[in-house]
């Protein structure tokens, strides 16, 4: 006898899927489709419909030096903040894994930053890194003019990177710690018996065995560094000084809603989407090969 639940009519099955399909369509495909449509048209300044312009929006964006500057800034931001967030988290997780007393507390405490809304944490870091009163003011006192994110583009970029990395260190830490603890203790002990020291054990045993987690976090961190950076940039630097921190996602907002260039902003969104897709494909093609799945 057939034990499975079956539906007499295929329509019933479809009906069960409909709520989810509506959600996905309404909140993903429809807006994405609209963005594609807008990017290929020019919105009339005083209303009255869109004029079809083909790829003109893309041509004008890609001919703009400011936009290329924004792409460079985004890539720099993505590379450094992902690197920082992952390396710091891995170091913390490795240390925690070795000495387990209190690790439960770390787990809870370190996930909190991820739960803080980007603008809130950006505001906090704006105060912490303020050149006149914050933590860096002490450095400025001994070395006047050393730190001023309001004037120096590199300082501004550093501030944004620090704030973003801080948020993701906690997130990465949880995954790294879980991955490290999933490695059977006897493997580490066997390596110790084989004469391997702490550092050597990390590179020879633990690191290869957590590569699936490293790969997962790499994809997530890079994607998020393109998308989740908006709130931090908006509060801390508003893209300045001199566009130094005008990341792609922030430029979409400022061109679209401040510059009122909806069509150009839509075209930028499409480019950002394609860039993230491309980066993810690259990671899967070239990095995933080196991952050891157990």
């Amino acid at each position, binding site marked *: 006898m057939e034990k499975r639940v079956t539906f007499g009519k295929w329509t019933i099955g479809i009906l069960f899927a409909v709520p989810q399909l509506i959600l996905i369509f309404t909140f993903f495909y429809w807006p994405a489709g609209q963005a594609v449509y807008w990017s290929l048209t020019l919105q009339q300044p005083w209303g009255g419909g869109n004029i079809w312009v083909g790829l003109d929006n893309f041509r004008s964006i890609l001919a703009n030096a400011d936009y290329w500057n924004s792409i460079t800034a985004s890539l720099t931001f993505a590379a450094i903040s992902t690197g920082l967030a992952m390396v710091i988290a891995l170091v913390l997780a490795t240390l925690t894994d070795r000495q387990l007393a209190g690790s439960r507390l770390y787990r809870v405490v370190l996930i909190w930053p991820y739960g803080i809304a980007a603008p809130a944490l950006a505001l906090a870091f704006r105060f912490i890194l303020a050149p006149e009163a914050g933590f860096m003011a002490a450095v400025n006192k001994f070395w006047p003019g050393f730190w001023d994110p309001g004037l120096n583009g590199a300082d501004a970029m550093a501030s944004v990177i620090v704030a973003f990395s801080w948020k993701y260190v906690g997130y990465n830490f949880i995954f790294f710690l879980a991955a490290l603890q999933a490695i*059977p203790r*006897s*493997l580490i*002990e*066997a*390596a*110790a*018996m*084989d*004469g*391997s*020291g702490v550092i*050597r054990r990390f590179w*020879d*045993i633990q690191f*290869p*065995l957590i590569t699936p987690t490293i790969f997962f976090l790499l994809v997530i961190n890079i994607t998020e560094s393109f998308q989740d950076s908006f709130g931090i940039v908006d509060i801390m630097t508003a893209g300045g000084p001199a566009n130094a921190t005008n990341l792609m996602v922030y430029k979409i907002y400022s061109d679209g809603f401040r510059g009122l260039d909806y069509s150009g902003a839509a075209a930028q969104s499409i480019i950002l989407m394609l860039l993230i897709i491309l980066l993810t494909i690259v990671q899967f093609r070239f990095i995933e090969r080196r991952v*050891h799945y*157990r």
Partner: protein
Amino acid sequence: MASITIRDVRKSYAKMQVVHGVNLDIRSGEFVVILGPSGCGKSTLLRMIAGLEEISDGTIAIDGAVVNRLEPRERGCAMVFQNYALYPHMSVAQNIGYSLKVAGVPAAERTQRIQAVARILELEHLLDRKPMALSGGQRQRVAMGRAMIREPKVFLFDEPLSNLDAKLRVQMRSEIRKLHRRLNATSVFVTHDQVEAMTLADRLVVMNGGCVEQVGTPAEVYSRPASRFVATFVGAPAMNMLEGTVALDGVSLLGGSRKLNVSRAGLPVGSKVAVGVRPEAVRMVAPGTPGALDATVDLVEELGAGRVVYVDLDGASFSVVTSETVHPEPGSAVGLQFAESDLHFFSSETGGRLDVFKASVPEAAL
């Protein structure tokens, strides 16, 4: 080859002491098996020798040098783990050769030594495989190879056969024995399986509750168990134990319903003892035979080569191993007979062996 000297070794976790002052001398080239139920501290003791657990108190010396403060790699021990602990991302050859790689042995020599070990363990055709693609027995062999290649002073085995099926276990057991004969390295083998322990050991160390109960050859441990625990733990089916009280003319058993006519040399009348007799040492005779204990058959377990007969002796369960030719029926009455030389006496208070009953009346009688 190396001797191991263990002096007053203790292990405590927080406030719990799990190993209570163990003393043990392991001679060079000896195969010592530590046997005990789970949680008796046997693995902890082994891991303290290996350097994977800190020694709370006492000293462990290898070849006369105290190793308490040495890292595992400095002690010259190799260990085979219960779950094999093979590196899943490395091939068999890499697994076996890892210690050499760490030690900086040149690649050419490494390959040569891996080949040599693989030949002994019949792993040559598997060298390129990952552990995932191996069977349990093959993994076990790789784990052995990883220990062997370092030519260690001491081999440590932490229940290495318990994850294998029964047939493979017997096979690997004899391979380990052969390997030891060939390499003649000092070996310490931890197990809870008494058959494994009896067959492998030059000397057996029986542990219980963090203490060593007895050290001796398997034959000694079997024939003269030092305590009630050892008597019931070693041997299958377990030794029969009957509680008794020393009386003027022997030992009264089971609250006075039965009596053994043995001399009570030296023991005060009224002291409590446990009388043990191995199921293999009991003969079944016709009920009512003079000098036999009468009992009722409860259950018969067929073993093929013989049977285990469980009988009821005034409410106490008693087992007898019989030959193939005897066919007792459940519910029937039988007589149980045994030589006094086969009886073991233990103090009911301390559990220790009492030897005062030796050489007295030859036959136990009702």
